[in-house]
């Protein structure tokens, strides 16, 4: 049965090896689910969050995975809307990764709120001025779009293809994919932006607050651009990792180079805007009586963190990815992609954790926070869930259409 489910023309590891690979992830998932149970049954007192650190590891995780999962919408946009056919080689993998990232984030949000059964209230009593309302609406809709985009990938399975009605359904769905890609892009643009706006609108947190351009703070636009910039890099990294773990060539080298080029072009644009935004912030925060340098004098959050984010993990990988010579060298290309992703991971950390750690009142103190094992285990459960979904998809679905061609050569 297992062999009949694997696509023709490609080879996969033995079932025993596959079980050995998924076993640790299953165990980790079980531990994580127990932690989730504790949080739901006993409440969020199981976490180390508190009245000052009201957001913690989970919100940071949500912002990060959603930024990294942006490869799904941006690759879909480039392939279906702008007709960049080179990306057909990775679109299925991008959709699966996007689906994992978004569904994982939504699942964690379900644990993170104190009364998950009241989540539907946001749709019933929506506050149209809240960035979180925008995030909730867009993520819910986009997760539906991703699920719809995932269906044709599943239906293309060798066994399922034999059912005529499923084949017809897949064919018809595929014809509509351009619509879903466009809708997905629209929704994704909005919620990536509103995740940035989530912190940018916080007038009471001068470290995060940014002036509005139109109706959105500048972080709205920076989050869209940064997510679009690192999404392709993350697709590149995951494809490379899948290739290394499975010991197979999955896409042609020019696909990596193309993804790197897209990432670099957007990243340099983002970094320039981020630098300009930072300079504006320094000026505006001063007018509100705050000392911008003061924010970087507390504990370990020195100016090095800003330098690392903008230069070391921003400008440097952007220049590397724009260099044809670097892109020709796979090791350097992957390193640059990893640095770009690390830069965005750091940016989300600064926006979520550093913002909350910094005091606002003159008689406040700097606060630190270390997540509890339940928070870490829940985070690892999402990681395990992602690894399992991707592993099963990789084994039984055609994530990389070029693989068969490469293997036959």
């Amino acid at each position, binding site marked *: 049965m297992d062999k009949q489910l694997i696509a023709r023309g490609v080879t996969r590891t033995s079932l025993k090896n596959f079980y050995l690979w998924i076993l640790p992830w299953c165990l980790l998932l079980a531990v994580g689910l127990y932690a989730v149970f504790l949080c739901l049954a006993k409440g969020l007192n199981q976490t180390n969050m508190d*009245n000052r650190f009201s957001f913690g590891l989970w919100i940071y995780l949500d912002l990060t995975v959603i930024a990294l999962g942006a490869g799904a919408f941006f690759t879909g946009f480039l392939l279906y809307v702008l007709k960049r056919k080179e990306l057909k080689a990775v679109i299925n993998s991008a959709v699966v990764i996007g689906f994992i990232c978004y569904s994982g984030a939504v699942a964690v949000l379900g644990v993170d*709120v*104190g009364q998950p059964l009241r989540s539907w209230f946001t749709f019933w009593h929506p506050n149209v001025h809240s960035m979180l309302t925008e995030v909730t609406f867009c993520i819910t809709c986009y997760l539906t779009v991703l699920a719809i985009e995932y269906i044709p990938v599943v239906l293309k399975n060798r066994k399922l293809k034999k059912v005529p009605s499923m084949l017809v359904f897949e064919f018809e769905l595929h014809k509509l994919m351009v619509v879903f890609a466009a809708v997905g892009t629209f929704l994704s643009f909005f919620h990536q932006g509103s995740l940035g706006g989530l912190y940018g609108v916080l*007038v009471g947190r*001068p470290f995060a607050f940014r002036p509005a351009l139109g109706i959105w703070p500048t972080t709205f636009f920076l989050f869209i651009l940064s997510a679009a910039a690192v999404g392709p890099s993350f697709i590149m990294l995951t494809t490379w990792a899948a290739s290394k773990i499975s010991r197979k060539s999955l896409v042609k080298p020019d696909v990596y180079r193309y993804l790197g080029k897209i990432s670099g072009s957007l990243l340099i644009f983002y970094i320039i805007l981020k630098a300009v935004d930072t300079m504006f912030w320094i000026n505006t925060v001063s007018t509100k*009586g*705050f000392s911008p340098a003061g924010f970087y004098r507390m504990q370990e959050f020195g100016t090095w963190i800003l330098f690392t984010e903008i230069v070391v993990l921003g400008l440097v990988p952007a220049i590397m990815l724009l260099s044809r010579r670097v892109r020709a060298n796979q090791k350097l290309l992957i390193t640059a992609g990893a640095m770009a992703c690390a830069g965005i991971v750091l940016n989300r950390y600064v926006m979520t954790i550093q913002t909350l750690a910094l005091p606002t009142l*003159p*008689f406040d103190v700097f606060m630190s926070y270390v997540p509890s094992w339940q928070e870490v285990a829940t985070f690892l459960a999402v990681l395990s869930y992602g690894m399992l979904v991707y592993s099963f998809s990789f084994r039984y679905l055609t994530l990389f259409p070029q693989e068969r061609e490469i293997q036959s050569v």
Partner: protein
Amino acid sequence: METTQKSPRYGMVIDVDRCTGCGNCMVACAVENNVPPAQAKVTERTGMTWMRVSKLDNGLPFPENRSVYLPVSCQQCDHHTPCQSVCPQNAVEYDIESGIVAQIPVRCFGCRYCMTACPYHARYYNWFDPEWADGIERTLNPDVSARMRGVVEKCNFCHGRLQAARAKAAADGRKTESESDYTTACAECCPTQAIRFGNLADPKSEVSILSKSPSAFRLLEDLGTEPKVYFRSEQEWVHTIVKKTSSSELKEHSNG
């Protein structure tokens, strides 16, 4: 004193020179608003105190050392209320009839975005199930609902008392409540009368006059959220400290 026809804007003026830091306001607030007693596992950072008394110190050695106490609750921001605009399901309400920023715990789903938005850290999350020892539950205030685990709450200027004052006004045939009908538990119980409560929109009211005195100040005024809780002190060093913001060099003054 009868208020003018204009809608009242309730506010407070707290004289920090009078405050002894006794914590009576915290206790009165908890009793009035059915805030449950802290459980053994509760820490300073997970506890529930709608009113929190912080200590400010001038940092000088004895005998020049001086300190004051600063009772901080929800500052009832009047302009671009940070917590109200961020709540995704309208669980934070700004009442234009009173200027009070209220929380609707039955609508709150505990996302805690409002807590992140509040610069005064005046919002509290129910990290634990509320528990009262046997018999104590009979002392609960019937005018105020107890809240459940997983929702956010905060000072609402004793909303139960406002409702009672409005009911009394209606019974007396008046359109609005009078200032003498309504005060908060903390203001009522302060032994030194450091906390004054009233209608800021009435130019003749005590709070309105006190709030305009040169010794009055508000916390984080530069943020532009127009808080309706004022503080007063004749001591220059208190003004110096509160005017400086947290990103300046003053965090060593803290003992909050």
